[in-house]
């Protein structure tokens, strides 16, 4: 197999596993819009990285982390509703990101299309190192803090009364999301990363009976969709990211259809 194919395969599977598991928390905590806003801010990170000559993934990571804290702080203020505030911030980040990119000297060399939709076939070895490191860290943290993370997701007051440090764990979850978005963005693109977080988890919800089962099913669905999507993209010459997401949507629709039919029959 050609190197670029092997890299694409590893990257796709890796992203699918991390986003599948972390996506469950996005679904449970209703953070879909939050993760979307975070993804939008990556553009500014990439622009800044190019401008200042810092590694783009590192720049994205740092900027996303700052942006996430800003989002949290803005949501506390609550003069606007949470979703409006997220909307303002997400589009501000997007607009400033495009402006910053256009001011950059090598604007003509920047492929905006691949920033938006990703380009899994151009994944480099270095990208894989970032993905591997980030993925292992995210995974280890999720496993280690699984119990308190679930508890704050179910009920904050209950968790606090039992001695869980809520704020610290919430920050951890946001850090994990930031890392996931930053290391996946080159591969899947900023418009599709939310899809990878939300769709497999939302599909798994209907199939799972416990939270860990839901995480595992989401990861498996994500990996399967990625493999099929990549295959489609190669044989039919389709863009890989959208192909992967389309397969995920098909899974989602099929699962929902079967579930609805099942509950109809029960009645």
């Amino acid at each position: 197999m050609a190197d670029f194919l092997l890299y694409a395969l590893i990257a796709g599977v890796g992203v699918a596993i991390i986003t599948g598991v972390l996506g469950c928390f996005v679904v449970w905590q209703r953070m879909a819009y939050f993760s979307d806003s975070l993804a939008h801010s990556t553009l500014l990170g990439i622009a800044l990285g190019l401008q200042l000559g810092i590694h783009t993934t590192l720049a994205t990571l740092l900027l996303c982390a700052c942006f996430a804290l800003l989002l949290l702080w803005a949501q506390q203020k609550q003069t606007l509703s949470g979703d409006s505030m997220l909307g303002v911030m997400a589009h501000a980040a997007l607009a400033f990101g495009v402006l910053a990119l256009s001011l950059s000297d090598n604007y003509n060399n920047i492929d905006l299309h691949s920033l938006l939709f990703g380009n899994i076939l151009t994944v480099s070895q270095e990208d894989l190192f970032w993905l591997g490191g980030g993925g292992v860290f995210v995974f280890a943290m999720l496993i280690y803090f699984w119990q308190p993370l679930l508890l704050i997701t179910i009920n904050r007051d209950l968790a606090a009364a039992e001695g869980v440090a809520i704020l610290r764990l919430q920050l951890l979850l946001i850090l994990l999301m930031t890392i996931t978005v930053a290391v996946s963005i080159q591969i899947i693109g900023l418009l599709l990363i939310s899809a990878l977080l939300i769709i497999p988890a939302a599909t798994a919800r209907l199939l799972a009976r416990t939270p860990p089962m839901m995480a595992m099913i989401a990861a498996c669905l994500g990996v399967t969709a990625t493999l099929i999507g990549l295959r489609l993209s190669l044989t039919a010459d389709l863009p890989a990211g959208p192909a992967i997401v389309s397969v995920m949507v098909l899974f989602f629709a099929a699962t929902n259809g079967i579930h609805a039919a099942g509950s109809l029959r029960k009645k």
Partner: protein
Amino acid sequence: MRQPLITAEAIGLTRDNSKILDNVSLNIAADDFITVVGPNGAGKTTLLKCLLGLIKPTQGRLKRQAGLRVGYMPQRITAARTMPLSLHYFLALNKNSNAREIAEIAELTNITQHLQTPLAELSGGEMQRALLARALLNHPTLLALDEPVQNLDVGGEIAFYHLLENICDTRKVAVLMVSHDLHFVMRRSRQVVCLYHHVCCSGTPQVVSQDPQFKALFGNEMAELMTVYQHEHDHHHTDTGETPNG
């Protein structure tokens, strides 16, 4: 004297220029059974949350015994349908309890037959007992209950209080409860705190029910009704029946 579990010295909470709690002082000792009563919006739940450290008071001093274990039963939790969560998994999400204990406490709180039920599908009474079970699994020295019988019908309410009495009698646990239900409050509590942003009056049920401030807050009729209840329960009549299924 032993150190109290929680000591509140003149705590207050001001939010958006309105005083939700004002100059509240309270001691909770190891064998106390304290009930906070008061009209809606009096700040009862807020006081409970302040005492447990879930909300930081803006005035006053609050001391909690080092290593205090609290079993907290919130008013309700809305089990998100986004998470597939069985009652058993919910109870097991606790580093202080093992499988044997979960089975034991599920039996005690009469939820064994619901252990595999998704949390979101429990009835009001089942959910209250599930939350009580969760609170007990934390090995509490203090049980903090926020309106535990809200949303229950009369039968469920009586059953719940039987259960609570049983637990207090068999386990060494202090109880701090917020309640509307003056009947039970007067019968069981050793101390009643009547709250309307500040402490209107506090003391034994007998003392509180005679207090003019209490009468002003709940009306003469209620105060008289409560005196009647106390008479009833001076006679130690036997409780009938088993705890029915909720």
